[in-house]
């Protein structure tokens, strides 16, 4: 099982000497726990993460937010660790800890001196199977997540708008439901809901352990076998299959008005394919497309056409999240200049995309983007935390270590023709939602029901 991946990037155009890239080792324990070790010996610190292959999109109908709610409750204690002691022990050892929930994963991490790895492993393994929760914990923490929703979503019209757009984007897939949950369902979440979730999904055969920093793989293996090895796998782990999208046949348009909106804007998102194991080419082309269209305000296609050649836009962007278990979205946004209506801004955005489809890729811009992608692999090595997150998100979203390591080469291999083909495929309005965020007269439009989270693709993080 010991597979040692030593991965060197070819930096053909850039670098004289080949750069040694991250040093990654993987193995799997008998109970199904996958382990990824990323070595970085520059500082004697370690990041220890456990990623569960379960996220908000795995929730049953009616209990939206339970994945994130359980994430909060995971800090409440076990028979070994008294309530609220988990973070206190980590801090007393000079470490810090936190957790985050997304549509596709839930992850817990500590950053601590490398010689304390066994301590945090012991505590993390303990709460994987032995969480103890009370009704009082459940009630208080439900109030906390409702305040979190108030702070992150209900106080921010842009977040409410994003939530409504995602709900319109997905006709049948749970990505249309916010990670933090709909308020009316969050209010009804019970201790039993949380425990049901925990008992079904929190087990070594549904988890990935990532240890990054000043560690030796053999020592990590020894500690992992000691702490995680004895945990029983879950026998009834359900197959991970969500409801899928039917063909999307009708363009959707939404207008969201709120008196708190100071700057109106237009966002359009298109249903788009994601990176899949062994098949990342189309996602790579879309990644390049997003960079070409909106990567930089001065040099991107949208920036040039809409802020320089014409002064229609204050700001434009194109965005695409390639890492996702199921279908992703490709987005475009335009913030109109003063005096430009949303209709005019949207028309100018459409015209710019049409021109791009007719004109094709600017070869010089394409080459500069590739140069930056190669450089980003160098800069990325400065953050072992960032590398750990890269692996964690990929491995919980249907990808393999080999896919992660192949990704820079796949990006490198994208041609201009690949980008244009991907663009022609993705820009189909029948699979798109166009949203206008508008300012309502104060007192004019109905107050939005305390409802809807930031971009549903973004992880909701809880500070610990």
């Amino acid at each position: 099982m010991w597979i040692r991946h030593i991965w060197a990037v070819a930096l053909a155009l850039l670098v004289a000497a080949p750069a040694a890239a991250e040093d990654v080792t993987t193995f799997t324990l008998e109970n199904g726990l996958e382990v990824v070790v990323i070595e970085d010996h520059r500082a004697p610190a370690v990041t220890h993460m456990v990623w569960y292959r379960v996220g908000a999109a795995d929730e049953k109908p009616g209990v939206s937010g339970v994945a994130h709610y359980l994430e909060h409750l995971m800090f409440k204690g076990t028979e070994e660790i008294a309530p609220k002691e988990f973070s206190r022990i980590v801090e007393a050892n000079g470490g810090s800890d936190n957790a985050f929930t997304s549509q596709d994963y839930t992850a817990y991490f500590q950053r601590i001196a490398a010689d304390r790895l066994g301590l945090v492993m012991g505590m993390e393994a303990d709460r994987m199977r032995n969480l103890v929760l009370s009704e009082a914990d459940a009630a208080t923490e439900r109030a906390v997540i409702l305040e979190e929703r108030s702070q992150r979503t209900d106080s921010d019209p842009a977040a409410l708008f994003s939530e409504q757009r995602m709900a319109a984007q997905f006709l049948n897939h749970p990505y249309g439901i916010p990670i933090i949950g709909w308020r009316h369902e969050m209010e009804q979440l019970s201790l039993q809901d949380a425990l049901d979730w925990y008992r079904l999904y929190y087990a070594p055969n549904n988890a990935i352990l990532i240890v990054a920093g000043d560690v030796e793989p053999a020592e990590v293996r020894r500690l992992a076998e000691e702490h995680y090895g004895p945990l029983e796998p879950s026998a009834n782990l359900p197959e991970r299959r969500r409801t899928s999208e039917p063909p999307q046949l009708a363009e959707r348009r939404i207008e969201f008005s709120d008196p708190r909106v100071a700057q109106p804007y237009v966002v359009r998102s298109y249903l788009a394919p994601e990176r899949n194991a062994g098949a990342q080419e189309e996602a790579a082309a879309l990644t390049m497309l997003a960079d070409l269209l909106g990567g930089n305000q001065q040099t991107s296609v949208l920036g040039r056409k809409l802020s320089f050649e014409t002064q229609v836009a204050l700001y434009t962007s194109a965005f695409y999240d390639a890492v996702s278990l199921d279908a992703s979205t490709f987005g475009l946004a335009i913030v109109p200049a003063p005096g430009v209506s949303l209709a005019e801004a949207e028309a100018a955005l459409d015209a710019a995309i049409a021109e791009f489809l007719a004109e094709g890729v600017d070869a010089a811009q394409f080459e500069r983007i590739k140069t930056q992608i190669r450089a980003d692999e160098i800069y990325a090595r400065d953050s072992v935390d960032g590398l750990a997150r890269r692996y964690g998100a990929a491995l919980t979203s249907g990808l393999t270590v080999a896919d992660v390591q192949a990704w820079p080469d796949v990006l490198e291999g994208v041609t201009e023709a690949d980008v244009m083909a991907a663009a022609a495929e993705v820009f189909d309005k029948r699979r798109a939602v166009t949203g206008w965020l508008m300012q309502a007269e104060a007192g004019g439009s109905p107050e939005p029901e305390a409802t809807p989270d930031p971009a549903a693709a973004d992880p909701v993080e809880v500070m610990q």
Partner: protein
Amino acid sequence: MIRALFAACAALLLAFPANAVDIQEVTSPGGIKAWLVEDHSIPFTALELRFRGGASLDAPGKRGAINLMTAIIEEGAGDLDAQGFAEAREALAASYRFSVGDDTLSVSARMLTENRDAAVDLLKLALTEPRFDVDAVERVRGQVLSGLQSDEQDPGTLAGRAFNALAFGAHPYATPADGTLESVAALTREDMLDAKARTIARDRVVVAAVGDITAEDLGAMLDHLLGDLPETGAPLPDRAEMGLTGGVTVVDFDTPQSVVVFGHEGLKRDDPDFFPAYILNQILGGGGFSSRLMQEVREARGLTYGVYSYIVPRDHAETWQGSFASSNDRVAEAIEVVRAEWVKAAEGGVTEAELEAAKTYLTGSYPLRFDGNGQIADILVGMQLDDLPADYVNTRNAEVEAVTLEDIARVAAERLHPDGLRFVVAGRPVALEASN
């Protein structure tokens, strides 16, 4: 070298051999001082520049000029227009970030070893020959104005602004560094040139570099990059007259959850009581989940998602502040809990167990901050701005360890003023009376 630092700082807690982090104090042939940590394992260098004074050096009637100048300095320089400059930077895969705050203007650069000279040339062009073309000024001005309009609708920004207006009297700290709709609308290209002349000068710059560069190469780089900057700029600001009094201020804003900014006077970074106060704050409301405020307001009562306190030693005024958000119908209770914790700490200090836990956290976590070239460079310029010696990385934990329960009790009694706390609440709080 990072390893060595870790060892030094963790020595009291962890069983590493004591050693010293290798911060080299470099003086270029031209006389520019910088701190350097060499690490040749990744072929790039992180360079951090800080110019003291920052947005507080705005000329009278020109609030927002330095912020706009900072936003536009990369929008064309020398022979390159805004797009030409961006293309040149992209081709080098370098990054430059310019930002400005109340006390400093920051330049953060990352440059690959293989084309570092060209990346420095381009950065120098922005620092010495920015064009401030009229079309670029207009374009970026529009973005700043849009942001200012959005600020008017953001309860957190409204609360923070109202707090600053109460706290800092006639000092620039009292008003937003990005200016007002009126002041920004009136700024001209000449104002940009003047704003740059006021802030970007050799006599106020501190420098740190971390990564794949030698002291010799760094010296030559700095002479080239900074040698042609003007020797001096506008005089640094005076101290602010603090005006905070105890009470509650409500900023009416229609939103379901109120945002609260609270605080009173704080203490200077070089105050002899800084370390006791810092540890006290850690226990009271510092970053951790185990702070008293977090336990009482969030964990015990579910009144908020997060509550924090912080000591803010600005260059020309000091506050001890905090913030949280609570639903309109619960915010009055949350304020009472915060006030009660302030009273409890002022009257009773902290416990031995709390002090020990805070010390082990602060001493153990300090070396974990030295995480990556960019992070280390950021720490090194911060130390220089605080007039700390390079050796501070090796003495800091001992200063934390030296603080006693008695020190904290005394500092808590002297420096926490429960009756002096001003709570600024933006929202529609229920059953909360504003006071003067």
